[in-house]
């Protein structure tokens, strides 16, 4: 079943032209987003490390790692929906809602963390299910559905919480956010790395993951080969909701409080990191291709650039403009790369 429904297999095409096989594979690696990003990260890191004192201090590395962890998780949440060719504007709203539910459970209800954390992640999945169900049943593009739901989720959350934050969380929450492994690495980054490995395996080896990719690549073909695309799309939105909830929890651990405004008005502040990381990492907006490693590298690049520019005392607001420019340059480079690959007959 899975074998017939996977997206076009590149290796199968390589068999047809064995002569070019080895060189084209190397070229493809060199032209891949992941390789390009790794090079850019290396250059940026070396440049900042040699010119800015304090950039490589243990504390700086710790905060950079923590930020990479959170931004990657936000990017993965969006990636889970981009797979289907859709998008989810409500990731920020879901993340904040889940964090607030966690705060309410842990602070007001006295629920132990071991229960409150899974409950909040499940809640995120539930909100994602609402999105997915509405998208599939109405047949309306996910842009407009999630535009409406981000407004509704955020509005209900603010209404119920009266815009008050939960800032008397159990002390374990803050200590988790501060926890370091090997003295430099944030626990949050480790969590993200574990999730990355799990997601890669999920998309590569499980039936559900392959079906998600197939649905995104060509929904009609997937439907004809027996995949229930409606359910798959709903599942993608649920996964996005759960990942967004996890990102919200990680942000709560970093801040030490569940704050309604932690993702800005309507959760809009998450939109840029959410799209930047996957798009830089080579996830196709039209669906059907994901790159978990690329998303991680994309978030790492953005975080290193932001931290470096901040240390150089470039105003916080100009960095916002820089990130917009990076996004623009990233999509333009991607276009160019695809053109080159096509001209050489590699795709």
């Amino acid at each position, binding site marked *: 079943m899975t074998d017939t429904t996977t997206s076009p297999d590149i290796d199968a095409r390589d068999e047809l032209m064995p002569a070019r096989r080895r060189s084209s594979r190397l070229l493809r690696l060199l032209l891949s987003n992941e390789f390009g990003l790794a090079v850019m990260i290396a250059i940026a890191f070396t440049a900042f490390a040699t010119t800015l004192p304090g950039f490589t201090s243990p504390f700086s590395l710790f905060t950079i790692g923590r930020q990479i962890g959170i931004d990657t998780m936000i990017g993965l949440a969006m990636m889970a929906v981009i797979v289907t060719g859709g*998008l989810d504007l409500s990731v920020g709203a879901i993340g904040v809602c889940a964090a607030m539910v966690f705060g309410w459970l842990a602070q007001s209800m006295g629920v132990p963390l071991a229960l409150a954390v899974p409950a909040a992640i499940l809640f995120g999945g539930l909100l994602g299910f609402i999105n997915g169900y*509405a998208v599939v049943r*109405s*047949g*309306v*593009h996910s*842009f*407009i*559905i999630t*535009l*409406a*739901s*981000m*407004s*509704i989720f*955020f*509005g*209900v959350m*603010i*209404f119920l919480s009266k*815009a008050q934050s939960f800032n008397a969380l159990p002390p374990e929450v803050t200590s988790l956010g501060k926890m370091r492994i090997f003295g430099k690495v944030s626990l949050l980054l480790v969590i993200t790395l574990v999730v990355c490995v799990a997601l890669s395996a999920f998309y590569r080896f499980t039936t559900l993951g392959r079906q998600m990719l197939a649905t995104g690549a060509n929904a009609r073909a997937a439907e004809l080969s027996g995949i229930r695309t409606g359910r798959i799309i709903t599942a993608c939105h649920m996964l996005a909701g759960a990942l967004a909830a996890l990102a919200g929890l990680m942000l709560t651990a970093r801040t030490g409080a569940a704050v309604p405004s932690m993702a800005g*008005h*309507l959760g*809009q502040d998450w*939109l*840029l990191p959410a*799209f930047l990381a996957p*798009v830089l990492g080579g996830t196709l*907006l039209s669906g059907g291709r994901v790159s978990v490693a690329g998303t991680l590298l994309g978030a790492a690049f953005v975080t290193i650039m932001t931290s470096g520019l901040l240390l150089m005392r470039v*105003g916080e*607001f*100009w*960095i*916002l*403009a*820089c*990130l*917009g*420019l990076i*996004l*623009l340059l990233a*999509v*333009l480079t991607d*276009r160019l790369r695809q053109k080159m690959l096509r001209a050489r007959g590699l795709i």
Partner: protein
Amino acid sequence: MSATVNRLFDNDWVGPALVCLIAIAGISWLQPSFLSSFNIFVLLSAIAVNMVVALGQLVIIALGQMNLALGAFGGLVAISFVAIMELYGVPPMAAVAIGLAIGTAAGAATGFVIARTGISAFIITLAALQIFKGINLGITEAQPFYGVPQVVKDFGNLAVIGPIPWLVVPMVIVSVGMWYLLNRLRIGRYILAVGGNPTAAELSGINVTGTTIWAFAISGGLAAIAGMMLVARLQIGQPTIGDDWLISSFAAPVIGGAVLAGGHVSVAGTFFGVVIIAIITQALVLFAIDPFVVQIVLGALILWAVGINRFREIRVARHNEAR
């Protein structure tokens, strides 16, 4: 009889107009101060600005795209408008022209990138949103400009006659202009054709690249007008102007029957969409309901309108099949 009623409801604006009438009647019955001349003035001022914002999104929806950067254009123009008057003493009329030029140029540049690269408007306008918002905050450092000349303040504060504010004047001009553009001018028809079916439009000789740039330039110009109207209304050059345009700019055209895939929009419908949103926002204030509920209501309104549009599409499709 029923055929006439049916045909009437085929017009996009009839449904929203009815909802407006019922809402006005109901709220003024419960709360007579709703129809006080002061309240009407406030309501019309809000409608005027929001209508121009909605039209800025409408022209892009007609093209079958979306513009996330609308608020960023408006905000940047608003603070530049006040800044050049305060710091360089530019006369207000010249400042309006410069503001309009900035908005149109920003829109045209965004449209150029989208049209030439063929990358989805979503991602390009998301990038444009960050760039223009970043420039805005970088210039102002998030501090407002206070030096708004008296004539601009008066424009936002005074009435033409009775409870009708001056702000309504640009709204009427822009609305009529947009209707004329979409229904009578070649570029408007081109925009709708590209929105309806880009391939067919291209094959029939329409310059899709040029049309896209035009549409985004118009959108940027309208955002500029709305931003400057908001400066007049708020009496201050706030860097946060435009931050909350995103949801309402989509809600009003969709309530007015616009098809998000492009090619079908209604200026009159959008107007009643704007009125519905303004009435609901006002009613929540009048009945002292938590202002955050507005967010929930706006989201629910979008879903409701999308549902209605979908239902009408299915009905039209069935009707065509039966024939």
